[in-house]
């Protein structure tokens, strides 16, 4: 057991602090905009803190740590791609500026403005399914991380995880985006301290030369060159770049930070500066993973190697800080994701089955029930689902299920006047087809005919989803201009 009394004290103080702060923030919620986008009053620094905290969960550390352990330095390319993608979205305002100007609260809401209520319903369903499947494995990885770092068996960790998710559900249901923004700030500070502690511990215990030697002996040239590494290659690099641009602009939990900002200009600055942190977000945990390779060699379970290293080298006292940091990272991610997917379920799926929107109070009530139901689903799904390929690739693929179609629909909707309903339907359905095909067929590759094997390659399935969605939007729109004339967007606020 690695965890001492002082570590427990630090962790419990943190958990109690989160509950008190999250529930206290409920007093600031007065209407739907207050609940879902914090009244659109979030400024740059706070926006960056909440955005980074949302996008950095324990699952992020685990999947990047795993990549560092199995692929060496080659995976570091992902950090550069993410930095380029997110800061470009921030610098140019690509999509996020337009969405913020139209004052939407969820991305499918834009589909109704530009296309139709039915497109919004379909977009909401695809987004919800992709989002919940994506989030479904988070708890598994959190469990692995905590079990290795703290030195307890899976039973004790399951209890901690359940307590954590119940706390998150409670404050997200009650305080919505207000609770999220306020707790995210505190969680951002704590998780940054946790990351710093872990990085310093790694630098003190594992020397850089032995990391280089371990990578070259284990992986050869593929350990430093992503284009040579068999896990990556050109397909992977192009897919991750396109996917990062799409996720940067259109991943509901992240985009909701732009939609909560005080103005479109602040949304852009928030994205640009957050984008600059994204190289570190990927490379810091990958560096820990490479250190685990140097420390233990190969042969450990790939997701467990990095957390096991941290559990062994971080001293008692600091370990509590690290665990509090990781719990903070997870809680800020869960809260934002829970609110994002429950908002989509309430407003874009349940709400769109009616001809008119629910009253605001009903929407907030439905969102609260949905957040509770999704939280319970996470606990159940996380226990039995076994992910294919690496965690990173599963997360990106389930993300692509939605972002590929959304990229086609929203980018064309904002910047291409000829985009219409038929194009939007085709983009959403074709974008979801390749990732869904992979998830369904990957486990039965042996019974597939040879010409269908390409769909069981995670990188090809991911890349294909973006290509098919773009093709669907362009061909679908051009072929049906007469039968389905494009609708123009309403005029918007300018700042």
């Amino acid at each position: 057991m690695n965890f001492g009394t002082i570590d427990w004290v630090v962790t419990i103080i943190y958990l109690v602090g989160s509950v008190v702060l999250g529930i206290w923030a409920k007093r600031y919620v007065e209407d739907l905009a207050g609940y879902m986008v914090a009244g659109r009053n979030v400024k740059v620094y706070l926006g960056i803190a909440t955005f980074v905290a949302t996008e950095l969960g324990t699952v992020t550390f685990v999947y990047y740590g795993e990549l560092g352990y199995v692929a060496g330095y080659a995976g570091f390319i992902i950090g550069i791609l993410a930095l380029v993608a997110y800061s470009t979205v921030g610098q140019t305002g690509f999509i996020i500026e337009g969405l913020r100007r139209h004052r939407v609260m969820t991305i499918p809401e834009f589909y109704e403005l530009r296309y139709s209520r039915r497109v919004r319903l379909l977009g909401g369903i695809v987004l919800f399914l992709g989002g919940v499947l994506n989030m479904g494995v988070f708890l598994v990885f959190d469990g692995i991380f905590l079990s290795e770092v703290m030195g307890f068996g899976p039973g004790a960790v399951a209890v901690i995880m359940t307590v954590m998710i119940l706390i998150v559900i409670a404050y997200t249901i009650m305080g919505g985006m207000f609770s999220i923004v306020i707790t995210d700030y505190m969680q951002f500070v704590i998780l940054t301290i946790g990351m710093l502690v872990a990085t310093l511990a790694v630098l003190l215990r594992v020397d850089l030369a032995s990391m280089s030697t371990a990578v070259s002996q284990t992986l050869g040239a593929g350990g430093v060159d992503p284009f040579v590494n068999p896990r990556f290659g050109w397909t992977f690099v192009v897919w991750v770049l396109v996917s990062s641009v799409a996720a940067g602009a259109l991943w509901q939990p992240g985009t909701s930070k732009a939609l909560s900002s005080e103005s479109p200009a602040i949304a852009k600055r928030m994205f640009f500066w957050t984008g600059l942190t994204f190289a570190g977000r990927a490379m810091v945990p990958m560096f820990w993973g490479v250190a685990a390779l140097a420390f233990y060699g190969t042969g450990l379970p790939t997701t467990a190697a990095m957390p096991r290293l941290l559990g062994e080298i971080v001293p008692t006292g600091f370990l509590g800080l690290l665990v509090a940091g990781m719990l903070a990272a997870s809680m800020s991610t869960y809260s934002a994701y829970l609110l994002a997917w429950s908002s989509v379920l309430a407003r874009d799926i349940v709400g769109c089955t009616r001809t008119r929107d629910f009253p605001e109070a009903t929407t907030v009530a439905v969102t609260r029930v949905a957040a509770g139901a999704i939280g319970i689903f996470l606990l159940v799904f996380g226990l039995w689902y076994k992910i294919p390929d690496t965690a990173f690739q599963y997360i990106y693929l389930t993300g692509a299920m939605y972002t590929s179609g959304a990229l086609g629909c929203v980018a064309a909707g904002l910047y291409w006047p000829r985009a219409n309903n038929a194009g939007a339907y085709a983009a959403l359905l074709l974008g979801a087809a390749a990732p869904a095909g992979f998830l369904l067929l990957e486990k039965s590759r042996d019974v597939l005919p040879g010409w269908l094997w390409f769909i069981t390659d995670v990188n090809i399935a991911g890349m294909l989803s973006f290509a098919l969605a773009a093709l669907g939007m362009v061909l679908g729109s051009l072929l049906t201009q007469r039968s389905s004339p494009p609708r123009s967007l309403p005029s918007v606020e300018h700042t």
Partner: protein
Amino acid sequence: MTSGALFWTITFAVAGVLFFGIALVVSIGGISDLRDLLGKSGRRKSKP
């Protein structure tokens, strides 16, 4: 250390400085943003 490993180690150092540097600035600046958010929302809510 191989040249490839050296390249990525330097890139990691730059990325780390950028991450922790921005985190420090945001942690300090975020306090006033937080006060501002709560102030505005409190005033809005207390209006009849």
